[in-house]
């Protein structure tokens, strides 16, 4: 088991607001981690901090052994594409989609590495096997899809490359319970031999027993088993 993500002393926020307070987190390969916390306690900001999308941040983030954390006070998103290209797949919450693109183009846009772009046809089929309802909608603009279908598109987009780390941000938010469960099952089906996944979720029942460990997030700090090694030590 190798470390995929090692966050040390990460603080991040927007403008005068500090959302994440000196946070440490270790995720190893093959792990599926649940991140549970209420609205406004920093789950999304943690993901955006890893991707370099917050207003400012400081602290060390080792991703696959490479340092991607930096101290910066402006320029959200300037380095995000470099980080993403190292194998980070973000499945954002809400409508972080491209309204005018069709479902097919959307999936294509997720295949950003050279290899993934060459094999995008097979990958699209794999994604469509996971999300059956999208098969009929390939040529439809995403703006016309329902909320659940949009979420499937944005998760499918994240699956178009071989990511090292998947960050799924509230995959069941705002969906009917049945659809939310389906989306979550699709996420749990993804094989993680060499990679890891963090699922942020408010509904603990959806995660219980299905992920390797659950971390709580409260007021910008992690509660509970922040790393598997750490939790072993505590036991």
């Amino acid at each position, binding site marked *: 088991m190798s470390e995929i993500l090692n966050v040390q002393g990460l603080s991040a926020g927007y403008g005068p607001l500090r959302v994440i307070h000196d946070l440490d987190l270790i995720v190893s390969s093959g792990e599926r981690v649940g991140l549970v916390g209420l609205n406004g306690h920093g789950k999304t900001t943690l993901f955006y901090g890893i991707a370099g*999308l917050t207003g400012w941040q400081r602290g060390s983030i080792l991703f696959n052994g490479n340092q991607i954390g930096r101290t910066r006070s402006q320029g*959200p998103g300037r380095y*995000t594409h470099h980080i*993403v290209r190292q194998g980070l797949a973000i499945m954002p919450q809400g409508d*972080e989609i491209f*309204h005018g693109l069709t479902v097919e*183009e959307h999936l*294509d846009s997720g295949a950003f590495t050279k290899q993934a772009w060459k094999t995008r046809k097979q990958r699209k089929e794999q994604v469509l096997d996971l999300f059956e309802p999208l098969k009929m909608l390939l040529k439809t603009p995403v703006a016309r899809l329902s909320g659940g279908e949009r979420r499937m598109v944005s998760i499918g987009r994240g699956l178009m490359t071989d990511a090292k780390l998947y960050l799924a941000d509230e995959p069941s938010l705002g969906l009917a319970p049945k659809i939310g469960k389906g989306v979550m099952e699709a996420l749990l089906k993804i094989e993680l031999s060499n990679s890891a996944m963090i699922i942020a979720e408010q509904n603990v029942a959806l995660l219980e027993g299905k992920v390797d460990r659950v971390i709580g997030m409260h007021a910008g700090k992690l509660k509970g088993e922040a790393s598997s090694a750490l939790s072993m030590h505590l036991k």
Partner: protein
Amino acid sequence: MDIGFILINATIVACIYGLIAVAVSITWSSLGLLNLSYGFIFSFAGYGAYLAARMLSDHPIVVLTAGILVGALGGIIICMLVFIPLHDKPNFTIRGMIGTLAISLIGSQCLLWYFGPKNKALPEVFGYWKVSIGNTVLTSDKIGIIVCSILMLVFVVLWMKSSRRGLEIRAMMMNPHAASIVGIGIRKTGFYVMAITGGMAGLSAVLLSQTYYIAPFSGLTPLIKGVSIALCGGLGSVQGAVIAAIILGITEALTSRLLGGQYVLITQFLVIITILIIRPRGIAGLLDKAREQ
């Protein structure tokens, strides 16, 4: 008064200004930059084509290619000087507008300093033949202008639709934040956008210089018209820019035929203001808040 003549003049105006309007529109919606430096790029590309015609050869393809390539180079220069340093700073929209305008004025002054105030003429790229359909006479340069600009526009639209870079640009037009999440680098895409739109401005410079001359400040009128057509069509919409270009082309041709050429700007801006009062977002502008910052 024959309708054919007016229609053809309208089409030519629509083609030339339409190219710049589409360029303005694409830059605005993908980069969030209201690029006012097309005036400079326009004259820059014109002088580039002029130098190529004098030094290399006056073969039509050489002149046209030189215009497009120098225009693209101008776009890249603007990107490096304005977009790269400013794009993640606060108030980028205003700063970018002022920055590009400043570069445009400085650049035009440099051209004036280097080439002198004397107007330069490009060789007749499209030859001297003519075709008559009914009682309308089509000269070669008119046909050439229409064909070239439509080809360029079709090429750009197809490239945006089918290529990977085009997909990246369109994705960034719709949601810049989500674009960086899927690994699209805003700076790199900026260079592509500025190069291709610069190429469009360069082509329109060569085409317009078939009827006018090249001068350091000859890009000013096309810039003003291009930006106002883009505004009128709804910033960010390629179809809107094309429709607005056709409407304003017809206005210009009709005005210069019925009232006289000196009234063209007055009627054109009256039409633009009327359209914007009735429909503030422009003809085909997006209501989405796809680009709100």
